[in-house]
């Protein structure tokens, strides 16, 4: 995590949209953000992902200017903006509940920011029309927000925030009020709009699927700290710690101890003595033989294999329960060591019947499917 705290001098460098340097937020004695440092690139779709109360919304509100920092600095394209009030920041927000002005038409909502900025009327109208076109709501210009569906309101909120051409667009869980189907459709649309508009998006969500599908990079947050920053792949396949492994997708976490380490490979022993070869992050420099930690294995990385298969990275156990999930079947397997793991297999891949409760199984971990986490 320390590697994130880049030196502040580099913030002025081109290509960086927002830089947060040791941002701390305290409410009385409660600390909402612990010296968070983040660098968000220009034109990037950057997501702040975490459970409720992790500080992601606070961070967004600090960038927007709705909250002051207790300590630390916020830079927008190299300029310190911590003391700039919200209405002077070239940053706009799409609110969770949209907050469309209920007494104004769709067009007037979109015009509002332009008018407040003093854009000449003709130019503002043109820009607003262009925005309506971008979100495909031209024919709704004179409706009131209450006459629109949830999805349409969402798009008006987006158009309103984009109209004044902000340097950065902030989105506070904008899809959470929509139903599942619409939410899925909007993900793709949102990503398209971002690419078309060519603006940096900072997106806040607690929905990992949303984060994984749209983001260029994701910052996983928990308890006021950034746990990991990386692409969707990085975060899913190479979680930095147990929190990330647990929060993103499903994972089996097994206690283990390092026997020896060679570069990014470690040999580990489970409590029962079974040995497993695992990968490890190059910057986990504190891990050496004797380090205790956890093995992280995704359920789909465990394969059922013939008993007594002699290859490495095999766990043995007994099936406790078989759960049919449509495309997949999930097996709950109790290992010989006593730990319980989830195994997920695609139904289309199986011609033969899956082992039922009570039968013994061997589980092979796919190559590259297990990581050792010291934290």
């Amino acid at each position: 995590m320390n590697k994130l705290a880049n030196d502040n001098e580099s913030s002025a460098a081109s290509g960086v949209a927002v830089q947060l340097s040791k941002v701390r937020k305290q409410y009385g004695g409660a600390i909402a953000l612990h010296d968070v440092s983040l660098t968000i690139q220009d034109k990037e779709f950057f997501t702040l992902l975490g459970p409720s109360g992790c500080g992601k919304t606070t961070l967004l509100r600090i960038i927007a200017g709705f909250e002051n920092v207790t300590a630390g600095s916020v830079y927008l394209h190299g300029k310190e903006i911590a003391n700039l009030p919200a209405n002077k920041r070239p940053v706009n927000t799409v609110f969770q509940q949209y907050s469309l002005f209920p007494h104004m038409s769709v067009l007037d909502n979109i015009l509002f920011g332009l008018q407040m900025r003093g854009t000449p009327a003709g130019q503002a109208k043109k820009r607003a029309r262009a925005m309506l076109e971008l979100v495909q709501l031209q024919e709704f210009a004179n409706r009131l927000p209450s006459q629109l569906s949830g999805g349409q309101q969402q798009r008006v909120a987006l158009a309103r925030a984009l109209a004044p051409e902000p340097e950065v667009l902030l989105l506070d869980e904008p899809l959470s009020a929509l139903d599942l189907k619409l939410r899925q459709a909007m993900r793709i649309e949102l990503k398209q709009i971002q690419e078309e508009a060519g603006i940096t998006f900072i997106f806040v969500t607690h929905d990992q699927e949303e984060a994984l599908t749209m983001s260029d990079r994701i910052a996983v947050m928990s308890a006021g700290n950034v746990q990991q920053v990386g692409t969707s792949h990085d975060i899913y396949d190479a979680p930095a710690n147990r929190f990330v492994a647990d929060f993103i997708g499903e994972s089996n976490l097994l206690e283990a101890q390092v026997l020896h380490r060679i570069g990014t490979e470690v040999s580990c022993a489970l409590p029962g003595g079974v040995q497993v070869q695992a990968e490890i992050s190059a910057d986990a420099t504190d891990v050496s033989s004797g380090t205790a930690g956890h093995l992280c294995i995704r359920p789909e990385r465990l394969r059922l294999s013939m008993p007594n298969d002699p290859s490495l990275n095999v766990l043995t156990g007994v099936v406790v329960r078989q759960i049919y999930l449509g495309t997949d079947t999930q097996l709950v397997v109790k290992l010989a060591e006593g730990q319980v793991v989830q195994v997920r297999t695609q139904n289309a891949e199986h011609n033969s019947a899956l082992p039922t409760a009570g039968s013994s199984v061997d589980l092979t971990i796919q190559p590259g499917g297990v990581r050792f986490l010291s934290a």
Partner: protein
Amino acid sequence: MSSVGERIKSYPGFGVLAAVCLVLLYAPLLIVMIYSFNESPSITRWGGFSLTWYVDVFTGSESSKFKVAAWNSISIALMATIGATTIATAAAIGMTRSGYWRGKSLSFALINLPIMVPEIVTAVATLIFFSAIGFKTGYLSILLAHIVFCIPFAYLPIAARLQGISSSYEEAAIDLYASRWQAFRYVLLPILLPGVVSGALLAFIVSLDDFLITNFVKGAGVETLPTAIFGAVKQGIKPNIMAISTLMLLVSVLFVTVSWWIGRVGDKSSVVASK
């Protein structure tokens, strides 16, 4: 709603008592209304329908006295309403938009103090205050006293509506480069307007209705409608009093109806639902 569910809810006799309650509340008012149209100057016996006493209110021997009193009442009520509503709107925004802070409940108690202190006590205290600082009691002292006790009546509906309006509307406005004044003027105030109008109408009615405090601080010579009516009633209930009463009653009903209607229309608008 099944009939069983309805039956479980209902208690025998409650409906009758509710009807009794309405009759009790309205009977005296309706009877005064009816008798205000009584031809006969003997106010108990019915002598046929007539508008005599309404004509008397506007042209009779006491009409000039009542006209002055009515003008005082209305002008004081108007100014007190503007003053109290402005103060109450600012206070309601300050209270509902500031999160938690030390002394907030004290501030709430202070704003609502005028409805917690018994009217007679407020009346005495205000009289003593004006007398102690040598302020001549009269029109101005009535106005000042009215502004004070109208504040909580204006405050409560405004604050109630503000609580139903998400603060993200103002934030959205500020985010879109509006100054705080512009955020208030173009976004919050239009959304809040039904609450402000309700509050203002109630403040107006409360000011128009006040007798006790006015009676203490009016000094000699200045009368409002209630003090004039009280003075007249002390001489006996004459039919012209009943006509004035009926007119005032209708004004009250009109105001409450408008206020109520605005409140309902306000609630139906999308604001509260989409907060």
